[in-house]
């Protein structure tokens, strides 16, 4: 059981966005998808999220061909947190989070319990009745995290669940970056497979089980942080001089760009 993409090619016009890309998201593991801007990370995430159709290659979800899933059932096992959301209607925070329950057929009282549990978990209970458009960028991002957490809250009998995140930490301060990634890491302990596009190499190294580096529409390297965080590789991909030293207090490498 996994979310798996095999030999994906995607052309838009004459531009090759993905070239022979394969990736497996395993239940209970967290993959950080890394690489410079324009490498194809978000495109790959969108392919896995079902947003593109014009690609070649194999896509499967829990041993079933991806397009055999009907959209409502797929939404019960696959949640997506996009880079930014353009909601500008004055829903309350609680209402936005409740939308995560849309694919489920559970009762309203149960849904309300899930929402209040989720809000507590992401530390948003005090904002539950605030109007969404009045929140700061970072708060909005956490509301959407809560919405997807509510969507993936429980096992629905359709196999392991997966969570795709596109730069979840970009709008957040240091404290909330770690808070969000801790939440996501916590999900992997419940058997959820996670794929997150991240830019911060050190953040990725401290949370992800596997790093996948993309550049120029294809996968350049993948493996555990200790294996792939090599100065030569990073310097080549990012076109910047990079040093890697052991972390002073933790058992992981520390990347320094100079």
């Amino acid at each position, binding site marked *: 059981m996994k979310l798996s993409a095999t030999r994906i090619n995607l052309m838009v016009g004459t531009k090759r966005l993905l070239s022979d890309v394969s990736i497996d998201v395993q239940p209970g593991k967290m993959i950080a998808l890394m690489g410079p801007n324009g490498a194809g990370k978000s495109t790959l995430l969108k392919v896995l999220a*079902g947003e593109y159709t014009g690609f070649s290659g194999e896509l499967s979800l829990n041993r079933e061909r991806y397009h055999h899933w009907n959209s409502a059932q797929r939404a019960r096992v696959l949640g997506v947190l996009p880079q930014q959301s353009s909601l500008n209607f*004055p829903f*309350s925070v609680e209402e936005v989070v409740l*939308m995560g329950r*849309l694919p489920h057929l*559970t*009762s*309203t009282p149960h849904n309300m319990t899930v929402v209040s549990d989720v809000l507590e978990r992401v530390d948003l209970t005090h904002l539950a009745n605030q109007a969404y458009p009045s929140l700061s960028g970072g708060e909005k991002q956490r509301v959407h995290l809560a919405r997807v957490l509510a969507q993936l809250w429980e096992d629905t009998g359709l196999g392991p669940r997966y969570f795709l995140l596109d730069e979840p930490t970009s709008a957040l301060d240091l404290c909330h970056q770690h808070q969000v990634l801790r939440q996501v890491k916590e999900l992997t302990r419940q058997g959820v497979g996670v794929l997150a596009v991240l830019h911060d190499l050190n953040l990725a190294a401290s949370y992800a089980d596997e790093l996948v580096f993309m550049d120029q529409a294809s996968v350049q390297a993948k493996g555990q942080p200790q294996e792939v965080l090599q100065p030569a590789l990073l310097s080549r991909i990012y076109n910047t001089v990079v040093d890697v030293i052991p972390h002073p207090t933790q058992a992981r490498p520390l990347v320094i760009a100079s």
Partner: protein
Amino acid sequence: MTSYQKASISTGVSLSKGRAWKSQCWIIVLAIGLVFAFVMSLATGALSIPFADVVSLLLSYLGFDNTPSLTTAQVIESIRLPRAVLGLLVGSALAVSGATIQGVFRNPLADPALIGVSGGAALAAVAVVVFGQSFIAYLPPWLQSYALLFAAFIGSLVVTLLVARIATSSLGMSISTLLLAGIAIGIITMSGVGVITYFADDTQLRTLTFWQMGSLGGSTWGVVMAAASLIVPACLLMMRYSSRLNAMLLGEAEAGHLGVDVQSVRFHLISLSAMAVGVAVAISGMIGFVGLVIPHLVRMTLGPDHRYLLPASALAGALFLLVADMIARTFLAPAEIPIGLVTAIIGGPFFIGLIIYRGQHGAL
């Protein structure tokens, strides 16, 4: 795991208890207000009928044993009742379609009239009035009352899809392009109506003038029933999409991730609102601003949740049109002001106020 119960029934996403309770109260208040306005509109007019007589007549329809006077009954049954029912239908159709179109296009300014939909319906309806009479005469009588409605529906559907097509590029739908295209197509359809005017004879000209300003007058039970048979199902069906419409406000990709089939939901909702608006325009002409003002007021009071917004808009739209029609009939009595002028005189300043408010608050 055990708490996940597939079998349990729910309408989907629900509101927090406080806001839901408030919304339900408002819907009850609106319903009571609507009943009151309905009885009022039956009582007011050239022949003033006492409130109590109207109530006793209405009660007699419901099976209570009353014997109202014959004149009263005739005036109400053949003139005022069909007109009031038509007001209910048209008001709900315009307000629900307005709210739905604003949700589908994720823009609170997307009024059916502003994006050219009403214009498309008017052009098709006027073309049928002027050129279609000889053709319609061949249709069986029961179909004749539908021919105009059907033409208006097709007209508004074609324009809505055209505007949506122009506004959609590979990057998604641009709201400013949508509004600009809607305005341009609105002008084109109005010119089309103007051109057709040259081919019209005197009787047809009077019908056309009525179209451009809107009126609930001259409605017979046959027309009202034909309109009801299309507007009521269209509005009820739009309400079935409420939860999915909420999710679509997050964005199309996000709605897709929540299991909503965005393409098909959007097409269904555009078709349904084109049907409701087309029928309303075919029967009552161009009644502007209802589809814009009513959903706005409701949204400001109840919030954007379509599960409450759509039914509350239906009630408020019907209420607003009944009141506007009472003003239209009584303000310059015995002369009658076209109802489209009344709604525009109330709605226009509201719209301007809205633009100023948006400018100052940078939001809805």
